[in-house]
């Protein structure tokens, strides 16, 4: 009997996980936030999201065609990046700006460095930093939830807080829509996404918890209400979707914890001692650069080896 069998090297079976599945999980986890953004900011939020996602996919597609590379948009990573980018932009952004954001994010941050898995900076946040430097005026106009886009007057006021020093007040703040980027608007939606991602074992909790806890502790040290401080701005959104990005964060659990703690530290230093009111973006980008060193420090000790420090 002469049959042709496949000859290979073990293992011959693989888990049913795949890059595409991971990306689809993230997209599902982003759904509650997307819906909350549309709910609070209207259909324009959806429009911005469609523009970033569409242009991100288109840029990756064109890049691959021009460079005669294997088409990679099928892994849905560009879709995830596009959605992430929209969620770190204010809803009032002129619609041509996100296109530049996508261009920068896909071509310069991702493809110039070798595509998926090779970039050392978080694509969406780097694009946000780029837009913030290029069009600062547009990037800092925050519209109050439910106010509609036309009322440009209703901008840049802090969300009216109740008695924030009581726990009840903090809980009320938790349930309120927040002023800021689209992804930051409704914290319960972000928490749902976090629970989903952890339950599906897409991310581990370490970086998220490290980030939130260290931000909490530092806010307490700096003397403000830590609960309110942690829930304002982009900390919660970033702690779930940005510091858990595979490519730009450490691969070990201890490393992820350290990464989260470091991000919390830098965020709070920028908020209290720096010139920016919001430090999440730069904190994460700075920590991204430190990842190789964190990996070295948090190198696991092999089974049966002594610890060398």
């Amino acid at each position: 009997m002469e049959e042709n069998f496949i000859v290979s090297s073990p293992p011959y079976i693989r888990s049913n996980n795949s890059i595409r599945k991971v990306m689809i999980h993230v997209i599902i986890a982003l759904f509650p936030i997307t819906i909350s953004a549309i709910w609070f900011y209207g259909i324009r939020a959806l429009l911005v999201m469609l523009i970033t996602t569409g242009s991100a996919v288109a840029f990756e597609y064109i890049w691959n065609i021009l460079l005669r590379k294997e088409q990679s948009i099928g892994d849905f990573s560009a879709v995830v990046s596009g959605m992430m980018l929209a969620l770190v932009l204010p809803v009032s952004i002129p619609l041509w700006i996100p296109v530049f954001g996508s261009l920068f994010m896909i071509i310069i941050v991702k493809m110039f460095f070798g595509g998926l898995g090779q970039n050392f900076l978080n694509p969406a946040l780097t694009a946000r930093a780029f837009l913030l430097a290029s069009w600062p005026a547009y990037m800092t106009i925050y519209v109050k939830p439910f106010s509609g886009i036309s009322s440009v007057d209703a901008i840049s006021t802090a969300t009216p807080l109740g008695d924030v020093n009581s726990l009840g007040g903090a809980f009320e703040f938790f349930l309120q829509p927040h002023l800021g980027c689209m992804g930051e608007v409704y914290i319960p939606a972000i928490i749902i996404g976090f629970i989903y991602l952890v339950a599906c074992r897409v991310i581990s909790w370490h970086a998220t918890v490290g980030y939130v806890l260290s931000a909490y502790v530092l806010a307490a040290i700096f003397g403000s209400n830590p609960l309110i401080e942690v829930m304002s701005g982009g900390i919660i959104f970033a702690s779930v979707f940005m510091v858990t990005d595979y490519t730009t964060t450490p691969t070990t659990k201890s490393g992820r914890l350290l990464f989260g703690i470091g991000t919390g530290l830098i965020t709070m230093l920028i908020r209290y001692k720096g010139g920016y009111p919001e430090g999440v973006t730069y904190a994460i980008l700075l920590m991204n650069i430190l990842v190789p060193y964190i990996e070295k420090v948090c190198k696991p000790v092999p089974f049966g080896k002594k610890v060398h420090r």
Partner: protein
Amino acid sequence: MFFKGFKGGVHPSDFKHYTKDFPIKEISAPDVIVLPISQHIGAPNEPIVCVGDYVKVGQCVATSAVFVSAPVHSPVSGVVKEIGTTINPQGIKVPAIVIENDGLDELSEQITPCNNLDLLTSEDIVRIVRNAGIVGMGGASFPTHVKLSPPPDKQIDCCIVNGAECEPYLTSDYRVMLERPERLVFGLKMIMKALNAAQGIIAVENNKKDAYKIIKENIDTPDIKVMLLPTKYPQGSEKHLIKATTGRKVKSGKLPMDVGVVVSNVDTCVSIGDAVEFGRPLISRIVTVSGNCFNNKGNYRVRIGTPIEHIIKEVGGFTSKPSMLILGGPMMGTTLYSTDVSVMKNTGAVLALGKDEINLHSAGPCLRCGKCVDACPMQLQPLYLMANCEIKDYEKLQQLNILDCIECGACTYACPSKRHIVQSIRIRKQEIVAIQRKVKQ
């Protein structure tokens, strides 16, 4: 109490339900036995029969004077037709003895049962095990008598039987534990006697609770206990099994005997029992025949030297053409390109997997997701190992402890990008070992 189990590992679907309820059946001896002359790690054997000789069941046909070797016995009676070559599962040409089976199964006079078990000394047991040609039947094929005679400065106090059987599909050890528990316990007693060890442990994964129960009922001495371990791949890895059962950690580059432990496979242990009591050499073993493509999956007693072709025919052939034919488990076994390969002493399974059971996706880029790091039972960093394997940076690979890799494939199983991690590591590891050997010389 120490932490039972180990960090890392994966949970593949085990497919043991295919065969776990099938009692062991005998597969008839083939008309022609192709017996590789050397079936162990160590010095090669020389044939001691000539073409035309009549050999009987259990007669020694090839042996070596060197200590680290194990003789090979004829599993059938008949005439030696040829002393030539065959291919081994790795696809390499090896010398082999071809015996034409006359079907009479005449027993050799060399087989002599032991008349008084109580008078046996440890030297007697080691000698019997060596003469019976017993090797590690879990896959390593290291001569067992060498394991049973450690250097005098190493005192062994604990003997472990590896009943974890963590590879998917495999159920042969499980069936042996269910059907011959008294032989298993007896074999373990003999190992303990040979090593003067005080303690014996039979380790079973907790997905085989009925085997655990039946072994427990058959233990008649307080020196032996049976332990349930968490079900996780690679629980059957020697170092991890020792850690899980005794809490001792085998240091990097050391052997189990350095922590006073000897680990044996289930089938090996039973074979030792048979050899000591009945004088029966290792001429057959239990093989799991499984995978979607087999008509009659099951657990079979197969004589060593039976061509795979014969097994396929005896179990009723394939339902559909398999994509892959594997000797051993799907995580660490070897694929065959031909069915002309013989069952060896370390062949635990023959699997015929269909297209839907194996993964043929091409590899994608590394996402740095860390799943391989979480999965590695040795706490290595497979993603960095692979990156350095690709650029052949031997120095960096050694810093990353490549030689500690046990090649279990858990990283590769877990990788969402289907990267060939352990495959790359395996190649570079061999190269590094070769370089180190050259430097030493």
